[in-house]
């Protein structure tokens, strides 16, 4: 009887040890795995091998990570069913990870040797550390050229969704978008302001004057009209190259001096003035700031930062909306538009690089034709907000017609051509995040602009130095 008990106990113990060993197993093998992945990344793929793999009856699962939700609902609703119908042996598992968690989860997954096969917008350092598959050989094999893709394809910065790193192609964009300004034409007309087109460039002094002209204070929220939404610099002017010199300098690593030029001092003074005069929703507080886009859609804000889809959405809701570039920091500087692409990266550790590549190619070349794009993809409609980045698609009748029908599309295309790519930096957000506190010091604590700016530029420099140091240590 006792022997039976011991056997039972020992069996349970063995099972427990096996389970726990399995938990720890991932930790032991990443080096081996990474080495394997590296080999995959550098081997020129053979088409025959690909065909043989795809043609086999084996079911292959590809795990795809993006932000999920409405923004990526087209993946579940249209892309996956369409792809699986064409490729019954491929099963796509789509995982939505909230935007602010994706980087951390991805890095943890990489460390645990369980990354997805494809991921949208990985942190720069993930690519720098060699965890994304290099695609040049795949492109050459399948007859795709870099020149087939839109402007941002040539850049490297995860924010802009650029696809190259060290002159190697790391991703294929699906769509491309602008980060510009839309304005309420009726409020502009009422204030006697000129209509702005995609070729107009205004500076922040002009913006301030326009905001003052439109602004209408009121005791009741229902009667209130704000001159503008705040064009917050760390989201707009800084990373979108709207100053000369660039906020981090030509080398992408020098905040001191470049972030505190006379132009920048003046820019911050204008922001502080707008804040103190209550011309933007920011002065009111966080709840109104959070809904500032809705305030614009309700006709209560004169101007706001906007992507192409935002302008289409506003027009769809009956607002008389115009699309132009954002104000520039340096007078006469032409760069008044930012932009980004939506693109997925193939993880180097994928067990199915060829299948992942085929899916990525499908996303880039075929998806813009089957998923609502641009004007058809209004907020919540589950489409891509921009236009195809694969340029041959723009010649298709569907897109030609779209440009003819909707002047906002034509304006957006013109604005796209104005995008000026900033120099590479490992993480623009971490570099310039300190300017949030700088602005708070200027507006809430009365610190003189120049003094606050210099202190913040030093914080920015410290953060940037640290970023570059980490980046260079992990770079492959």
């Amino acid at each position: 009887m006792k022997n039976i008990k011991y056997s039972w106990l020992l069996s349970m113990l063995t099972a427990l040890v096996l389970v726990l060993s399995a938990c720890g197993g991932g930790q032991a093998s990443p080096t081996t795995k990474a080495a394997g992945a590296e080999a995959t990344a550098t081997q020129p793929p053979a088409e025959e091998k690909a065909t043989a793999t795809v043609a086999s009856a084996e079911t292959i699962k590809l795990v795809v990570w993006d932000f999920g939700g409405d923004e990526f609902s087209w993946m579940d609703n249209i892309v996956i069913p369409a792809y699986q119908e064409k490729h019954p042996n491929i099963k796509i598992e789509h995982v939505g990870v909230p935007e602010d968690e994706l980087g951390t989860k991805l890095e943890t997954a990489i460390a645990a040797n369980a990354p997805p096969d494809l991921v949208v917008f990985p942190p720069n350092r993930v690519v720098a550390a060699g965890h994304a598959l290099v695609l040049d050989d795949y492109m050459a094999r399948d007859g795709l050229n870099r020149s087939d893709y839109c402007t941002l394809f040539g850049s490297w910065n995860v924010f802009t969704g650029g696809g190259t790193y060290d002159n190697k192609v790391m991703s294929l964009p699906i769509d491309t978008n602008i980060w510009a300004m839309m304005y309420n034409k009726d409020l502009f007309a009422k204030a006697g302001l000129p209509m702005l087109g995609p070729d107009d460039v205004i500076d922040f002094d002009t913006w301030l004057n326009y905001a003052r002209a439109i602004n209408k204070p009121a005791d009741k929220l229902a009667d209130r009209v704000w001159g503008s939404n705040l064009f917050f610099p760390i989201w707009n002017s800084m990373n979108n190259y709207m100053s000369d010199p660039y906020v981090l300098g030509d080398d992408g690593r020098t905040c001191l001096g470049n972030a505190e030029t006379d132009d920048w001092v003046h820019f911050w003074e204008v922001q502080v003035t707008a804040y103190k005069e209550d011309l933007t929703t920011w002065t009111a507080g966080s709840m109104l700031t959070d809904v500032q886009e809705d305030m614009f859609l309700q006709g209560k804000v004169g101007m706001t930062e906007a992507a192409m889809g935002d302008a289409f959405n506003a027009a769809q809701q009956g607002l008389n909306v115009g699309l132009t570039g954002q104000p520039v920091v340096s007078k006469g500087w032409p760069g008044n538009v930012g932009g980004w692409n939506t693109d997925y990266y193939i993880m180097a550790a994928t067990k199915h690089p060829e299948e992942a590549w085929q899916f990525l190619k499908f996303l880039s070349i075929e998806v813009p034709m089957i998923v609502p794009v641009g004007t058809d993809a209004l907020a919540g409609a589950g489409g891509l907000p921009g236009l195809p980045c694969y340029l041959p698609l723009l010649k298709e009748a569907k897109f030609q017609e779209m440009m003819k029908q909707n002047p906002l599309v034509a304006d957006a295309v013109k604005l796209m051509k104005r995008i000026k790519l900033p120099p590479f930096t490992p993480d623009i957000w971490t570099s310039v995040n300190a300017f949030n506190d700088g602005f708070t010091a200027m507006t809430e604590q009365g610190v003189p602009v120049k003094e606050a700016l210099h202190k913040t530029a030093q914080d920015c420099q410290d953060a940037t130095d640290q970023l570059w140091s980490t980046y260079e240590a992990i770079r492959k």
Partner: protein
Amino acid sequence: MTNLVQRFIFPKLSGLQRREAISAYLFLMPWFIGFLMFLVVPIGMAVYSAFTRWVLISPPPVWIGIANFREMFTTDKYFTWSLGITLKYMAMTLIPLMIIGLSLSLLLNQKLRGMNFLRTVFYVPAVVSGVAVTILWISLLDPQMGAVNTVLRELGVQNPPRWINSPDWALPSLALMSLWGVGGGAIIYLAGLQNIPPHLYEAAEIDGANSWQKFWKITIPMLSPTIFFVLITGLIGSFQVFTPAYIMGGTSRFGAGSKYMRFYLLHVYIKGFQEGRLGYASALAWILTILSAIVVIIVYNSSERYVYYEKSGEGQG
């Protein structure tokens, strides 16, 4: 096989004793394996990684000696800053929470109708998720549309605080929010209060003690172990503030990671997971552990002076 077991495992024990010993160890084994894998090994790794440059996605960790600690004390501006924020918050919340919690528990200890309902009401905030509580308070404290400022304006306050949007009020906002959870501590005090033998109060009344004397001479000494428990857990909790700072910072105009709400643990998180520097974050975490331990040891060692433990048999003979 049996001989082999007898020879190498517990050789000095008899058969029965050996079987019992093996049984005992087998029963202990799951806990021991868990203890090793989930506590000892991670702690060991944390110690090791504190001396390395370790980026999660770029293994292996590289040994850099005390460079992380040197950076902390020389170039990392947010190290002392975040520690200062944490200590300020501790000063703002710890003692007020204890005093208000105790006062509340005295009220909740009254024998009135509907007291159980009131006790539940006051305890509810303690069981609500920290994220939900934070989001609720973000709305309440909104400078323009929040309920708090609306009431203040109605009361004639011309320029009410801008709460989480103001560098001066951001920390008091968090402290105010934490006071909302005072019911959690009050319930612990209440349990302590109900353990005080009534005959002590009866004896004091016979001796002519007034309410203040009963409170000061009986309630406080008899409640001192509970107060001490709340103090220690409150101290440790203050070192560990993360959720409200992370969420409030992210939704306020400062942005997540702003220095105005950069609590120490948030700083550790930013370094470890946003900047990917796990080695440096481990070093920061160790400093927090050591500091917390020092504070707790000091408080613990001084507790003999103000904590009264009723011992069985004390005073007899």
